């Protein structure tokens, strides 16, 4: 299947970015160096093309009901112009995807926009449509992934840069998880104070045709998926398809550490299964760990207990650029999750000393 090219593809090519396939998209992985890009976001500001993320708009009289029954959180608590993080689960409570959803500003009365992970937009569009039909709800579901570009501007200086690009100084006071209509480089779009790096930051969604002008309006370090991955890992945030995967590594939100995004007081697909897990506690949980020896943990490496018994598998790992130590995420039995617990990570056949640490690894 041909790879999907983001609207900024030509801009990235002219900037000599290294590209990679991600979720069916051809995306920039590195512009200058992962370390340089990572540091700019921790110490200043950087911009990411995240147009591979899906965008699905749900509107109509029953939009509220449809969103509430297909996501794990309570969308009735989401005011116009704010965002909410949620999981999308199957009837067994297994995470199919995680998503940021926005109840759009009042100008777009009662519309939702939600952002599935790369490559999941069509599956989620179909899921929304088939359940709408099954439940006989009056809602329109539109997959706008190809129509919109999405740019993340992240870092301690991001508010200044966004104020400059929009000409609106008040943006510095925009609360976290708020979303407003805005104009950048003459293009009208949505701006939200959200992100995936552990820093203050913003995400902007604009028509694809204006992507290049909006991208250029932010004069800062361009960053690729490489730095996005090291930043999100330091922040202890999940990567779909790696830290959970409904086929390869089916996990429920309590195992994955996102129980805070589940509201079992609402009726949604998977609610009953998750209420049972909430009651009993999950058998295994995602933990963070740090290596005490020189080595780099990687996805798929075995995790051992201190006496050499295989107890789990690494789902994500890296040498953390800000912290300067090797870190990783993986699932282990509930009795091995206490921070400080000694474990081993098997690197090329040899167990390297490591210990469980509290998440996130990095907090601003």
């Amino acid at each position, binding site marked *: 299947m041909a790879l999907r090219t983001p609207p900024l593809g030509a801009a990235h090519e002219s900037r*000599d970015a290294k590209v990679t396939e991600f979720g069916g998209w051809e995306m920039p992985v590195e512009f200058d*160096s992962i*370390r340089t890009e990572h540091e700019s976001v921790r110490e200043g500001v950087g911009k990411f093309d995240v147009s591979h993320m899906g965008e699905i708009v749900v509107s109509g009289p029953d939009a509220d009901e449809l969103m509430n029954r297909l996501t794990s959180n309570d969308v009735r608590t989401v005011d116009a112009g704010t965002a909410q993080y949620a999981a999308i689960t199957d009837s067994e409570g297994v995470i199919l995807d995680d998503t940021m959803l926005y109840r759009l500003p009042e100008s777009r009365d009662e519309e939702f926009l939600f952002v599935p992970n790369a490559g999941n937009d069509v599956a989620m569009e179909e899921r929304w449509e088939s359940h709408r039909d099954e439940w006989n709800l009056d809602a329109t579901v539109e997959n706008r992934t190809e129509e919109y570009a999405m740019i993340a501007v992240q870092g301690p200086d991001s508010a200044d840069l966004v104020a400059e690009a929009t000409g609106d100084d008040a943006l510095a006071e925009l609360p976290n998880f708020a979303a407003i209509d805005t104009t950048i480089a003459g293009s009208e779009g949505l701006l939200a104070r959200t992100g995936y790096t552990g820093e203050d930051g913003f995400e902007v969604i604009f028509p694809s045709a204006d992507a290049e002008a909006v991208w250029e309006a932010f004069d800062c370090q361009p960053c690729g998926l490489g730095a996005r991955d090291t930043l999100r890992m330091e922040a202890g945030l999940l990567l779909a398809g790696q830290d959970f995967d409904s086929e390869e590594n089916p996990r429920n939100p309590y195992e994955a550490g996102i129980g805070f995004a589940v509201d079992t007081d609402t009726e949604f697909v998977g609610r009953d299964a998750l209420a049972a897990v909430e009651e009993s506690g999950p058998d295994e949980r995602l933990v963070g760990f740090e290596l005490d020896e020189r*080595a*780099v943990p990687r996805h798929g490496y075995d995790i051992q207990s201190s006496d050499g018994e295989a107890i789990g598998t690494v789902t994500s790992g*890296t*040498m953390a650029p800000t912290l300067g130590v090797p870190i990783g995420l993986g699932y282990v039995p509930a009795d091995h999750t206490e921070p400080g617990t000694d474990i081993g990570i098997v690197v*090329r056949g040899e167990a390297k000393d490591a210990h469980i640490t509290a998440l996130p690894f990095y907090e601003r």
Partner: protein
Amino acid sequence: MSFDVPDDRGYMESHEWASEDGGTARVGISDFAQDELGDIVFVEFPDEGAEIAHDEQLGVVESIKAVSDLYSPVTGTVTATNDELLDAPELLNDDPYGEGWLVEVDLADESGLDELLSADEYRDQIE
């Protein structure tokens, strides 16, 4: 993008180099290889005294994004290792033909040097 390929050494198709000086060879990875790998964060190579053979695994180099096996361009006995790389693996990015060398090898009779690509041949491969 053009990469530095000094004429004074031989290259492997797998991007390692060896430069000979009176029966001893110094071994490292090419400018192209360090650029492909990106930020290098870890390197593992044999201890002094180890016997290594042409085209056999010499060690491992890891960047933030990938793990790559290293192959030996020469056959012989390791007489020195660049232990500075253990604390500063980024030297492999900054100066792959100089400060970022990996090991020095006392060459055996069948050193493997004549199997290596010339700088011109290696340039053709990476262009």
